[in-house]
C-alpha cells in the first residue's frame, strides 16, 4: 500500500500533456516563357523555365495566315528545373506554343 501511494505522488508531480502544431507554407508553381525576335536572323527564340519538379511537354504548331500547317512541328519534354538554371531555347517563326504539365 505504501508503494502504491508513493507511486501516485510521483505521477501527480510529473503531469505532462502533448499537443501538436502543423506549420507549412507553399511556393506556387511558376512558369515563365519568353519570346525574343532577332531582326537580323528573322528568327524568334522561345525560352521556357519552371520552378516545379513536374515535367512539361512543349508543343509548337506552325501557322500560316492563321491556318495550322502541321499538327506538331516540334515537341520536347522538359524535366522541371529551377528557373534560370536550365532554359530550353528553340527557334520559332509564326508558331503557336502550347505547354502542358505531365503529372
Amino acid at each position, binding site marked *: 500500500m505504501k508503494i502504491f501511494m508513493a507511486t501516485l505522488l510521483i505521477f501527480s*508531480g510529473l*503531469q*505532462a500533456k502533448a*499537443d501538436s*502544431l*502543423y*506549420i*507549412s507554407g507553399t511556393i506556387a508553381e511558376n512558369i515563365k516563357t519568353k519570346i525574343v525576335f532577332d531582326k537580323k536572323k528573322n528568327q524568334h527564340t522561345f525560352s521556357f523555365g519552371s520552378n516545379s519538379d513536374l515535367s512539361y511537354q512543349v508543343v509548337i504548331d506552325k501557322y500560316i495566315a492563321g491556318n495550322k500547317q502541321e499538327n506538331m512541328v516540334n515537341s520536347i519534354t522538359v524535366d522541371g528545373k529551377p528557373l534560370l538554371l536550365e532554359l530550353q531555347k528553340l527557334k520559332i517563326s509564326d508558331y503557336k506554343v502550347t505547354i502542358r504539365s505531365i503529372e
Partner: protein
Amino acid sequence: MKKFLSIIALMSAMPAFSATLNLSGTIASSCVLNSVTPASYSTLNIAAGQTVVVGQTNVSCNSGAGYKLRASSLNNGRLVNSSSPNNSTLYTMKIFGAGTLNHVSLTTTAADLVNTGALTAPVTNELRNVEVVVTPVPVAWAGTYSDTVTVTLTAL
C-alpha cells in the same frame, strides 16, 4: 455553602483530559498544457523567409516548482517539400514569456523552450506566443513545405 465548597474541592481533585484534532486538506499538483492553437498555420513565407507568430500555448499550473515547455520536430527542424523531400529549409522556434530559452533549432528529440523555474503564483490559462523564424529556401522549388511540432509540458 458547605455542599458547594465540597463540590469545588472534588472537581479540583479530578484529573484533566485533552486531545488534539489535526485539520488538513490537499490541493493536488496540476500542471497541464491545455492546448496549442491553432492546430495548423499554413501561410509561412518559404521563398523569402519570415519571422512570424504561428500560435499560442495555453498552460495551467499550480505547482510552485514550475514547469517546462518542450518541443520536438517530425522533420528534424526542417520544413520539407511534400513532393520532393530532398528540398527543405531550416527554421527555429521560440515560445515567449517568463523562462523563455529564446530561439531553438528543433530536432526529433524534445528540447526545452521554456523553463519557468519556481512560480511566484499559480497560473491559469496562461497564453504564450509561439514564434518561428523561417530561413529562405535555397532553391525555390514549387510545392508545400511543412513540419509537425509536438509541444509537451513537464512539471518540475
